[in-house]
Structure formats: structure tokens, C-alpha cells
């Protein structure tokens, strides 16, 4: 079992190892709680290593396909050649998303070790957490629309179980049911669109479909369904209302995985727009659709965040508004897709800004949710009104919250500034008004975060929090990992942009090379 063997089979292993570990969890539980936690941690660590190995290879030597089942070039008795095989295709963008998912999952498991200790049925908690990872990686790697639907459902069902994990709370089942209704209706729309495309082209493979796509009436209906479903799953206005309901009732480590799962839906949206439809669709209309959705998401998200009394709802609404930045940046890039000159000047940089924002968003949103979880762990409430003066006993937590809030508001030198700076500049060239609204939203984000910080951490120490201490070390470790990444990404932005973001964007926009690498010249 050499390194090469691992590398060749890593796309399958990244799915198979957590899947196997997940269903082994109820058995491993019999060996004791320490072993169970150890196995969960070892699994996510192994996945992180595999993902980094795979991503390094993909960035260096181009996309990698993995074939399940029949030999390539299978011909039916009637002489009809179909890509009947099940394919995984890992290009730069998939590898980039996989790095985000694996890192956040690692942090979530480290944080969960202590955070969830007092809960019962933890074997099933880790089972569902690993299944969530399976769903995310599956959606990122698959080159097949139907597989995308299946992994979307795996992701939704596992997340729904975890959102309802603290079922003894009055609001947990409600948040979970809303999430499940939204997810299943979105997934059914995806399936309907898949049916439309299959009925026309007899193929489910994204590359095969992209090659044959004519953008006729039926294709347009499929595009509308896919855009609607994935825009809802990534929580864009006006379909964003399920996001705060769901994030606020889930345990904090699950909230950060839910943030990543919305980003995976965003990835699916970009994959549909760029790879499946690409230049053959009406790029200006679709680009403006993304821009308008992004602008309204930005504005409504942040204005709803300001009056919130529940700290997790406040952070969730900010998370909704952050998705808007990515939609705007990528929408601007996509609407210039048919115009190579302007695309080269600033369209490409706009998409880079959006994708850089994606990784930054997962880091600081994760950090903020972990801090809100730390508060919940110590004082047992999410209500901002009953907090105050917590900076005195919880110093590391409050510093982490400060770093996270400065990053989300786009204050230099943290990572949020670097990506938003790229977005402002490039979008300004496209249309100054969009850029100005985005900057205004950044200011309002800072206002919302200042309110949360001053309500929870500042002020005199309250008598009811005399006994509060700092949270346990493994929770601190989870927060510090994310906080140091926020600072590092902020101090060395071009290191990340050149080595991670640029290959991802190149892979995302090069539709012909996706088709060629899967189907041959």
C-alpha cells in the first residue's frame, strides 16, 4: 500500500473511510467512550491528511478522475456508447472545497470532545457527523447529477438528525423539521431537473450533459429549477429564513458544519452555472440573477442581525449576509463570461475574491459559532440580554470573539478584509453602486458585532456569573485553530490566493477542460 496507491484511490477513500467509521460507531461504543472519541478523531485526521495529499496533487498536476464500475468506453450491444460508469472528478475547485470541509470537520470533532460530553447517545452523534462529511465530500467530488442528489439527501438527513440532537429543547424539533422540509423540497427540485436533462440527452454525467447542452426550452426549465433549489439551500434571500432557525438550535460544532454545508450548496450552484451551463446559457441574465440575490441577501441579512436577542440567531443572520458577498462576486464574474477582454481585466479577480471569501467565511463564521457555543457551555443560555461582563472570566474566548467579529466586518489586517477588498475593487469597476452597498453592509456588520460583543463581554461583572470559568482546553484548542487561521490568512493573503484560490478558480471557469478530462478529446 504505497503512497501512489493511496493517492489514486483517495477520492473513493475520502468517501469510504468516514462511511465505514460512521456505521462502526455503535460497535466501537462498546469499547468505551475514550475509544469512541479516539476513533472519531483519528478518522477526521486521516481524512484531513488524505484531502491535503489529494489537493496538493490536483493543484500540481491537474484534475483527477476516479471510475467506479465498468471499464471506460463500455459499448452496449446496440452499439450505443454511454458514460454509464459512475465517475468522481476532482478538479481544483472540488479539492479546494474538500480542504474547507475536512478542516472544519476536524475542528468540530476536536471541539465536540468536551462540548458534547454531558449529552447521551454520542455514538450516534459521531455517526451522523461522519455521515455529514460523506455527504459533503460526495457533493464536491461527484461528476454525476443524480449522485449529487443522493449525496445532497445524505447530507440533509444527517444534518437534520444533528440539528434535532438536543431534542429536549423546546425549539430543536421545530428547527430540524423546517430544515428537512426545505432540504427535501430543494432536493426534489434537483431530481426533477435531473429528469428533464436525462430525458433529453440520455446522460447523467455533468461533462456529457455540458457537451451536448443546447439551452433549449427544457434546458432552461431545468436551469431555473436548479438555480432555485441551490439558491434556497445556500440560504439566499428571500429563501433565507430557515437558516437562523436551523443554526440557532443546533449544537455549536454542528452549526459550523452547517455553514460549510451551505457553502457546499453554493459550490453546487457554481458548478451548475459554470460547468453544466457555462457559456451556452444566457450569462448576463444568470449573472444578474446571482448579483440581485446577493445584494438583497447582504442587506436583509445584516439588518435582521442587528436587533436579534439570541446570539446564535445574530451570528446566523450575519452568515446569511456573508453568502451575499460570494454571490455578488461570482455573479459579476459570470456576467462577464462572454466578454473575454473585461473578464481578463477584472472578472477573473472578482471570482477569485468570491472564492477567497468562501474559505475566509468558513473560518470566521466557525470561530463565532464556537465562541457562542462556549458561552452556552458555561452559562447555559443564548440570550444576549442575560449576558454581561464575561470578558473577565473568559479571556481567550473573548479575544477569539473579537478576532472573529473584526474579521467578519472586514477590518484589516484580518482575512475578511483581504477578500472583501478584492470584491469591492473588482465590483466597483463593474457597477459602483453594488460596491457601495457592499461596503455599507460591512459597516452594519461591524455595528451588529459591536453590539453583541459589548452586550456579552463588556460591562461590569454580573453577580450571577461569579462562578463562570474559562472553557476546557479542547474547546479552546478548536477556537484557537480557527482564530490563528483567520489571522494567518489575513497576514499572508497572496500566499493563499496564489496557491489555493487561483487553481480553484481556473478549474471552475474552464468548462472545456472539464469535459475533455472526463470524456476525452
Amino acid at each position: 500500500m504505497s503512497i501512489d496507491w493511496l493517492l489514486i484511490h483517495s477520492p473513493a477513500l475520502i468517501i469510504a473511510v468516514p462511511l465505514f467509521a460512521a456505521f462502526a460507531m455503535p460497535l466501537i461504543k462498546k469499547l468505551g467512550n475514550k475509544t469512541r472519541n479516539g476513533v472519531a478523531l483519528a478518522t477526521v485526521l486521516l481524512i484531513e491528511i488524505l484531502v491535503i495529499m489529494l489537493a496538493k496533487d490536483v493543484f500540481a498536476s491537474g484534475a483527477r478522475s476516479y471510475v467506479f464500475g465498468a471499464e471506460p468506453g463500455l459499448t452496449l450491444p446496440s452499439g450505443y456508447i454511454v458514460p454509464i460508469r459512475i465517475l468522481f472528478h476532482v478538479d481544483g475547485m472540488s479539492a479546494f472545497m474538500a480542504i474547507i470541509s475536512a478542516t472544519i470537520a476536524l475542528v468540530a470533532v476536536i471541539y465536540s470532545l468536551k462540548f458534547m460530553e454531558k449529552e447521551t447517545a454520542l455514538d450516534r452523534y459521531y455517526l451522523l457527523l461522519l455521515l455529514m462529511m460523506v455527504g459533503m465530500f460526495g457533493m464536491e467530488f461527484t461528476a454525476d447529477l443524480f449522485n449529487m442528489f443522493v449525496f445532497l439527501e445524505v447530507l440533509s438527513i444527517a444534518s437534520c438528525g444533528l440539528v434535532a440532537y438536543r431534542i429536549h429543547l423546546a425549539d430543536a424539533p421545530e428547527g430540524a423539521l423546517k430544515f428537512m422540509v426545505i432540504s427535501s423540497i430543494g432536493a426534489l427540485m434537483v431530481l426533477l431537473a435531473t429528469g428533464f436533462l436525462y430525458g433529453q440527452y440520455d446522460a447523467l454525467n455533468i461533462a456529457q450533459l455540458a457537451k451536448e447542452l443546447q439551452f433549449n426550452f427544457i434546458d432552461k426549465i431545468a436551469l431555473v429549477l436548479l438555480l432555485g433549489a441551490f439558491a434556497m439551500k445556500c440560504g439566499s434571500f428571500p429563501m433565507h429564513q430557515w437558516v437562523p432557525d436551523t443554526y440557532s438550535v443546533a449544537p455549536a460544532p454542528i452549526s459550523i458544519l452547517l455553514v460549510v454545508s451551505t457553502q457546499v450548496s453554493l459550490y453546487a450552484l457554481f458548478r451548475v452555472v459554470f460547468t453544466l451551463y457555462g457559456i451556452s446559457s444566457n450569462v448576463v441574465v444568470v449573472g444578474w440573477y446571482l448579483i440581485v440575490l446577493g445584494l438583497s441577501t447582504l442587506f436583509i441579512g445584516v439588518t435582521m442581525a442587528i436587533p436579534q436577542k439570541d446570539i446564535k440567531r445574530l451570528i446566523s443572520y450575519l452568515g446569511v449576509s456573508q453568502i451575499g458577498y460570494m454571490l455578488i462576486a461570482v455573479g459579476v464574474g459570470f456576467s462577464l463570461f462572454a466578454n473575454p477582454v473585461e473578464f481578463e481585466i477584472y472578472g477573473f479577480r472578482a471570482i477569485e475574491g468570491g472564492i477567497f471569501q468562501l474559505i475566509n467565511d468558513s473560518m470566521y463564521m466557525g470561530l463565532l459559532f464556537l465562541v457562542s457555543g462556549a458561552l452556552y457551555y458555561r452559562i447555559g443560555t443564548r440570550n444576549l440580554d442575560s449576558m454581561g461582563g464575561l470578558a473577565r472570566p473568559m479571556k481567550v474566548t473573548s479575544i477569539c470573539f473579537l478576532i472573529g467579529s473584526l474579521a467578519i466586518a472586514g477590518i484589516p489586517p484580518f482575512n475578511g478584509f483581504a477578500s472583501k477588498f478584492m470584491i469591492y475593487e473588482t465590483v466597483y469597476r463593474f457597477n459602483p453602486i453594488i460596491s457601495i452597498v457592499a461596503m455599507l453592509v460591512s459597516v452594519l456588520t461591524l455595528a451588529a458585532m459591536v453590539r453583541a460583543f459589548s452586550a456579552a463581554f463588556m460591562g461590569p461583572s454580573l453577580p450571577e456569573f461569579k462562578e463562570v470559568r474559562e472553557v476546557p482546553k479542547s474547546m479552546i484548542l478548536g477556537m484557537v485553530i480557527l482564530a490563528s487561521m483567520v489571522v494567518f490568512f489575513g497576514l499572508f493573503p497572496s500566499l493563499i490566493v496564489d496557491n489555493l484560490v487561483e487553481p480553484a478558480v481556473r478549474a471552475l471557469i474552464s468548462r472545456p477542460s472539464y469535459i475533455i478530462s472526463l470524456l476525452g478529446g
Partner: protein
Amino acid sequence: MIHNIPYLAVVALVAIGFWAMIFRKNLIKVIIGIAIIESGVNFFLVALGYRSGAYAPIYTHAPSGQMVLPVPQALTLTSIVIGVAVLALMLSLAVQIYKKQGTLDTRKGVLKK
């Protein structure tokens, strides 16, 4: 015209499902709406897989001739299995909501604003 009837039925099923999800205020009825949409989508996939004059892909010793590619049937089976899991999960959550809040009215949720 006659071969379009399955597709008309699909449209009707999806429309009825959406109507139930939008205008019925009982959570159980909303969930039933999802189940109806799902049957509509499954029906659509099965209808796509029908080819007149060809053999259904279920015979081991089929007579020689055209045989239908069984991909839509496979998709439908997968989708049905997923649908059962989703339905069971949602109904169990509805039971929990009734236990906690004493009502299944969608307008009386605690999570809002």
C-alpha cells in the same frame, strides 16, 4: 396526445403537492404535500423510462430485440428509498413538536423573526 397523459399527471401531482405545502396550516399535511410531490417526481422518472415496443429490463431471458436502459428505474428506486427515510424522519419530528408545543399549526412556531 395520449402519450402526454403521464406528464400531465406529473404536473398535477407536483401542483397538488405545492398547494398542500403552501396553503395547509397543519404540519402533517405539509409533510403529505412533500410525499405527493415526491410521487410526482418519481412518476416523471418512470414515465421517462418507458419506450413503446421495447422490453422492460426485468427479464433474464428476454427475447431478442430492443430492451430499455434501466437507468430511470434505478433512479426511481433510489429516490423512493430516500423518500421513505425523509418521510419517517419528518413525521417523527412532527410528533416531537406536538409533544413540546401542543400544536401542529405552522403559524404557532416558536422560531420567528
